[in-house]
């Protein structure tokens, strides 16, 4: 069975490319003034004002366990919304590269250990030309932080 190709936005942390499925992405904005929220999870940088909506912003670097770097002019916040009417969440990345199409057959699932939660953030590795792209499981990342 051939799965339909999906579109992904390629973002970079340092030199490493990551893919985020395009259907979750609402917009990509430049860095904003972020208001710190005391005692929040360490990877949450705080909240921003997105056209009147308060949106929490997390650092993808910290979430994935990397060291933080200084913001540059290429730093972007990717606004994702998992449900149509649901709350938005902002993800800070070093750079946004391009949009690519990957068929399901281009993505190989990882055999990961359930206990390693960093690995659950990955949906698999996509092959695009010579590059290997780590496809991020955005919903798993967000669900983990959802509080009831």
């Amino acid at each position, binding site marked *: 069975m051939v799965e339909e190709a999906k579109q992904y936005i390629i973002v970079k942390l340092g030199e490493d490319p990551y893919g985020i499925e395009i259907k979750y992405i609402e917009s990509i904005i430049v860095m904003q003034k972020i208001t710190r929220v005391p005692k929040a999870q360490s990877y*949450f940088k705080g909240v921003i004002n997105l056209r009147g909506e308060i949106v929490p912003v997390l650092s993808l670097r910290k979430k994935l366990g990397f060291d933080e770097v200084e913001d540059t002019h290429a730093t972007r916040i990717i606004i994702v919304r998992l449900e149509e009417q649901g709350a938005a969440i902002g993800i800070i990345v070093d750079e946004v590269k391009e949009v690519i199409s990957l068929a399901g057959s281009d993505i190989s699932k990882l055999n990961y250990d359930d206990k390693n939660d960093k690995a659950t953030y990955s949906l698999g590795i996509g092959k695009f030309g010579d590059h290997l792209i780590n496809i991020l499981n955005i919903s798993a990342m967000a669900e983990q932080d959802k509080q009831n």
Partner: protein
Amino acid sequence: MDVSQYLEIFIDETKEHLQSLNEHLLILEKEPDNENTINEIFRAAHSLKGMAGTMGYKRMQRLTHDMENVFSEVRGGNMKVSSELVDILFRGLDALENYLANILESTEEGTEDNEDIINALNNILKGGVGGSQETETKVATNTATANIVAQATKDDKHKYKNIKLEEHEINAIKKANDMGLNVVGLTVYIQESCVLKGARAFMVNRTLEEHGEIIKLDPSAQDLEDENYDLDYSAFVITKDTPEILAKAAANVSEVKEVVADIYQLSEVDKAIVTASNEAMKKQKAKSGKVPTAKKSVKQVVNRSVRVDIEKLDVLMNLVSELIIAKNGLISVSSESDIMLDSAYHEQIEYLERITTNLHESVMKTRMVPIESVVNRFPRMIRDLTKKLNKNMELYMTGEDTELDRTVIDEIGDPLMHLLRNAADHGLESNEEREKVGKNPVGSIFLDAYQEGNNVVIEVRDDGAGINVDKIRNKAIDKGSITEEQAERMSDKDIIDLLFQPSFSTAEEVSDVSGRGVGLDVVKTKIEALGGEIEAKTKLGEGTNFIIRLPLTLAIIQALMVNIGTEKYALPLGSIQTVENILISSIKKAQGKEVINLRGNIIPIIHLNQILDCEKLEVAEEEDANELLVVIVKKGERYAGIVVDKLIGQQEIVIKSIGKYIKCPKIISGATILGNGEVALILDVNTLV
């Protein structure tokens, strides 16, 4: 026919009718001869039956029908209102409420037939009517005469001929005749299978109005619309056209079985009446010379209120919030540049500010609902509890017209119910005990609501035994919640506050009504979630009083903006008492805590920058190193002093949720957007006190 579009209206109106039935049944139980009440009950039950039938809820219709029969007997004076009867009727209402709940969930009424209630109703009906032979014959003769009337009219389908006209209507007919217009009487027969008789009648009338003017409808336009008629109704139309044209036009409306029409002739008696009164009318006639418009007499009294979906109000409220943010933006832009110097600009900004404030108030008011819609079910509940607990008690309510935001109203019902149940079950002593201590054996529970400044206060009070503070103290020690040492030091008030701790029930026995250990803490949580607070006051032997304070509005508040370190925070103005400059040297240590003595009050000092992990503001520290800026906040009877670095000023802010993804401490109650687009967090200082 698809009736789903009417479902919402059906649900709303059914709720209203059920509530009205509940209230009036309670009155009826106390005043069995109150004619207005029984009429009101009958009317509500009748409408309910009609609506349920229209929507195809057969079980609901059947139950209301049987209840209506009982009401009808009571109205006719053939049946006495007894406590048992009211019990069964209440059970019937509960069953109807269950149907409604099912409909709300699945649009289906469910499969519960409630046979037992219907049987009980029918038994009562049999007993009541059979009990007196006389009434039975009376009913029989009544139906007999009714039959004769029916017989008489049956032969003649022109029912309109038997309708008695009012004087002004006769007048109108006469004038029409004088002007050479036809007055046509019609009787319209609707098909038996018609589902929406009201709508059909409306369509027929509209058709008739195209040809002329309707001067009388029998039954009235309102009754037709409410479907309070059988399958036929009559109309009088002033028209240029012939009766045949009208009849044909009306018969063209679908689901109309038959229309009979003819020129209507005034009887001699009618004519005489008119001539008698015409003298007085002549002047007027000379002035206008016009046929009185039929619309005037047909026009129904229009209700001056509109049903609005709460979501639409939410959208409106959001837009107002946006507007206020935009206004704040304008102000902050102007204060940064030289525009401020332009006085005309300044005036306009002030004008805009007034408008937004008024707009906010108006929108807020439309969202306000009288608390009545929540509390009006309580008398019924207390009646049930009286039976269940075998304690006589009365509920006295005041301030039912006090208004609260709709979102608060929706949430406040459960906590209040809980407090009332508590008062009934634990608060009030048994009737015998009350008599022993010389109290009125019938216990009293009070529910008072009133506005106090920017808050609405709701008090739930009983004249029962009060809370035994020592009992709670001992129990808390037994449970290990506090140590004996702590208990020594705690004031009575502190002890009473323990009641609001999770799983702390003082009832010795767990009863069906309350006392399962989930109670006051849930009430407290809920009220705090609404931005309110609750406290308890009690006097042994005299009763207990639970006082709930709720904010009038949730979305937009006045706040004091402050700097803590480099960050801006908003403190709700409502909880702030004063702002003081305190010498660092005047801060004392007590039990390891920093306190100050402010005009006789010992107030603990809280360093917000430590709680919020803020960076220290180095420069400012240098300037006023010997003084601290302290915001004094008050919660109930207690104070706390909060150290801030700088005051920015007072501002109207819009409260926004911070979302569910980010974890934030309890002290942060939300966020707001400042004039410059930045986000500032709102601190719920009450959590610190």
